[in-house]
């Protein structure tokens, strides 16, 4: 937990970034590395690496496409969507009164035109015609989910990460 708290916002750009964290915590660099490897194997760390700021690398259009998929086809359709690299997120969600969409995909592309064309291709392939393409206009927050809170790193109750030490 302490390790995650120390580097969840990013490792420093120095020759030995994990040694820097280790010094800060008063443990050996190898221990930091081993623990991170284990956290990654156990998938508590979903991904460790570089996160690009999309707008700066040419990925401009981000659309949430919401689909109304018959419930008996959700699995098949969602798995099909998930195979595409352009689809970065694919979720099934609860519907609401006056809101019948149950499958949510986030699709990234360089321009709206290519995103729209891609969505049409997906729609035709799965034969689901009832969908909305919701383009982003402004981005207000984009940060990693699942931040460790300072109080958690000290509390014994947060045993999820404490095991196996």
């Amino acid at each position, binding site marked *: 937990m302490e390790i*995650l708290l120390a*580097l*969840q916002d990013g*490792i420093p*750009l120095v*020759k030995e*970034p*994990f*040694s820097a964290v280790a010094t800060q915590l008063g443990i050996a660099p*190898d221990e930091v*590395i081993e623990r*991170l*490897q284990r*956290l*990654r194997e156990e998938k*508590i*760390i*979903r*991904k*460790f*690496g*570089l*996160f*690009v*700021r*999309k707008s700066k*690398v*040419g*990925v401009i259009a981000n659309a*949430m496409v919401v689909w109304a998929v018959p419930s008996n086809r959700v699995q098949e359709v969602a798995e099909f*969507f*998930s195979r595409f*690299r*352009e*689809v*970065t*997120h*694919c*979720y099934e*969600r*609860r519907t*609401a009164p006056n809101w019948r969409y149950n499958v*949510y995909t986030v699709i990234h*592309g*360089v*321009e709206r035109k290519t995103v729209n064309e891609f969505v049409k291709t997906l729609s035709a392939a799965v034969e689901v015609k009832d969908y909305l393409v*919701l*383009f982003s*206009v*402004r981005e*207000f*927050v*984009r*940060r990693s*989910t699942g*931040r*460790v809170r300072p109080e958690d790193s000290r509390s014994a109750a*947060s045993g*999820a*990460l404490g095991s196996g030490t």
Partner: protein
Amino acid sequence: MRFVTVEIMLKATGQIDLMDRRLLEKAQDEFPLTLRPWASIGNELGITEREVMERLSGLFRKGAIRKIGPALDAKRVGLRASTLIAMKVPEDMIQNVANMVSKYQDVSHCYEREHEYNFWFTIAARDENELEKMLQEIRRGANVAKDDMLNLQPTRIFKIDVRFQLT
């Protein structure tokens, strides 16, 4: 589709050269958890540790990198409840509502989108109770009627994999 995307991307990223893009792409994937990770990455790309660090530092300055670090599984670090919210917010109120929502540390995405429901965010909490409390606070603070807020709770996650092909 893949090839079209790449071709346009190359044009759009003129100020970032091919080695930069290879570096960004490489470091998005299996990051070497070793004592000197930049040296390992440089090895694979055929450049020195020093060049990796200089290029990354330049990319940070250009704002092309958000961070180099972990993305955690929210559920397993104690955030057991999460949802996607859509709200109808009057255009002239959007920035104020966004400022208020951004203050919640466990809001991970927040966008204005083109639709009647124009304000979208994802939020996580320790449990359903804490989540419900935060949502009420937000709804009241934003002055949004109950019927103008959709709570779209996830039932199954099929994919989360935000990696971009850059070369």
